[in-house]
């Protein structure tokens, strides 16, 4: 077998001459940077601080007032998280997991097989079909809401998870097929030819050779799709939320709570928001590399 030439889709070069020492001439740069960082941080900081304050305090004063009473007893509490989890957010968290994991796993599997065919198999209509996939990438999913929810109502499957899994699979497939096909197509053709000469079938080449080599792009798409499905509100609301409230995912539950923003929910919102964000933030920090790679693969060539 010949040497494997793997092309990483994106290689972010490290800067060579970005000055490593602080000099006076860079002062305005640092000032601008600090300003931007503060502006970007303040919204999230406010809600994080509020989520740990006691409920009466959240209602009574702005979050910035804690800086006068940082170490007072009674300033900080986990009570909001306790209340929020008891009031349906623990259930919603489980629902979000139940929706997201299969909605990531199914399209990756289906797309990987299709991408291999588009990259390495010959069949009539191949280019036409792939062009259609390319076109479908920008079709707004709003186009699918009315017909699909009608079909789901007829079948009696609104409010169930499987309907949502397959819908998310459908909406994620164009990008998945596109990303995977481009990556697989960039693998060395002599590698595949020599495997074929050795008598390997397409199935063997796909599972033993192409899939292991495609792990970076599989991870990139998985990260994208995970964040997309977990953070989705519209699809879950339409296919799940109305029909069966006990199956509500976090975004729908959070939006409902926000709807009662009157006064009662005010002290619960910050903690609820953080419960909904904790897993994507974790995934984001852990897999940021893959996430960036997935984002850039479509728009910047490495």
């Amino acid at each position: 077998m010949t040497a494997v030439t793997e092309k990483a889709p994106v290689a972010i070069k490290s800067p060579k001459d970005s000055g490593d020492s602080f000099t006076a001439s860079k002062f305005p740069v640092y000032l601008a940077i600090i300003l931007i960082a503060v502006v970007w941080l303040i919204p999230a900081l406010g809600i994080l601080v509020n989520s740990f304050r006691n409920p009466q305090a959240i209602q009574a004063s702005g979050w910035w007032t804690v800086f006068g009473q940082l170490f007072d007893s009674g300033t900080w509490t986990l009570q909001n998280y306790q209340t929020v989890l008891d009031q349906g957010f623990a259930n919603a968290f489980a629902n979000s997991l139940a929706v997201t994991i299969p909605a990531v796993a199914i399209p990756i599997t289906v797309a990987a097989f299709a991408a291999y065919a588009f990259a390495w198999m010959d069949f009539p209509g191949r280019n036409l079909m792939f062009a259609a996939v390319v076109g479908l990438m920008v079709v707004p999913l709003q186009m699918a809401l009315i017909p699909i929810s009608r079909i789901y109502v007829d079948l009696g499957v609104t409010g169930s998870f499987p309907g949502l899994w397959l819908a998310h699979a459908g909406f994620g497939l164009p990008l998945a097929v596109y990303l995977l096909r481009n990556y697989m197509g960039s693998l060395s053709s002599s590698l595949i030819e020599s495997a074929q000469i050795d008598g390997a079938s397409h199935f063997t080449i796909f599972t033993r050779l192409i899939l292991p080599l495609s792990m970076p792009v599989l991870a990139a798409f998985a990260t994208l799709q995970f964040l997309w499905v977990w953070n989705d509100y519209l699809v879950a609301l339409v296919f799940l939320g109305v029909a069966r409230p006990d199956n509500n995912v976090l975004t729908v539950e959070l939006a409902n709570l926000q709807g009662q923003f009157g006064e009662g929910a005010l002290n619960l919102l910050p903690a609820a928001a953080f419960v909904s964000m904790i897993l994507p933030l974790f995934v984001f920090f852990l897999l940021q590399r893959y996430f960036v790679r997935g984002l850039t693969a479509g728009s910047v060539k490495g």
Partner: protein
Amino acid sequence: MTATPPVLRDEELETVRPHEEPGSQDNSIQIWLLRLVSALIVPAVLVVFFFTFEFLQDPGTNKVVQVVVAIIVGVGGVWLLYWALDRLVSALPDRAGAGVRPFVFAGPALMILAFYLVYPTIDTVVTSLRSAGGDEFVGLSNYGRIFSESQYLISLRNSVIWAIVVPIICVSVGLAVATLADMLPKKTENAFKSLVFLPMAVSFVGASVVFAFIYSFRAPGFGEQIGLLNAVWTGFGASPIDWMKLPFWNNLFLMVILIWLQTGFAMVILSAAIKGVPDDIVEAARIDGANEWQVFRRITVPTIASTIVVVWTTILITTWKVYDIVAVMTGGNDGTSVVAEKMVSEFFLFRNNGIGAALAVVLLIVVMPILVINIKRFRQQEAMR
């Protein structure tokens, strides 16, 4: 909704030359029938399994059981099916096998796409030509109403303003941040970029809750202002303002949320492009006496122009389809409605399928040129092989 990059660049697609096998281009009816059948089996099994088993529909079922079953079937089961179909196809005569096998691989994806995107698109276009209940053909009158009645015109106007303002600010700020970050030491740069990029992990709903605590309003006498904006505003001695009800400006306050979310995306992509600008050109310009601004204006920006267009288009598409922020923050009231939000409320609240579908078609028509350009670029790529 995370921004995905749906825009192709000229040099994007690798040229691929699959190994031709005898029979792979056969076009007889029998072969096409076999191709269709093998494409349908995987989706059919998924649908039958997911939708007929009572326990997957039953809310009482343990969620862990549901997820485990879904993964076993959705990945393991599907995998096994692909394998079994591949074995079956291998039992066919060589020529027929080579003709059918690609559809064992690509067929299921194509069928799922056909069901969830192609068919619905056609159906939505047809629905948009029918009355509210769908029982009567009304021609273009739904579109006529959208482009004449003030409630829809407001949605259209707002969507257009969103689509102009948000991408421009995201790209400009993203470009500025990327350029500034490039001047920092490596570690500081990464920490800073992560911070601006962080909101990309946050849902639109979550971001709306975050900003609800900035825009929060209490009428005078109803307690201290807990919203940051009003606290600052009243700090200057002014009386508090209900920002979400402030005509026209409330739209801009909503846009700030999306800008907070999407600028990180612009920054990350543009930052990668900036690092790709060849050093020797930049060095040569500096030796010739160019200052930083001239380098940025005359070298960096022209070099990464195509990336800027791609980022701008991607954010434009995301912005045009924005729903969550408006739905959660204002419900489209007080003149903040946008097309995607109006579409959902027409369909689900007012049960007006015709108008809802027509609004969805309006969403599609605007991204149509991008769709056509993408396909054209792809065809050119293929033709050059």
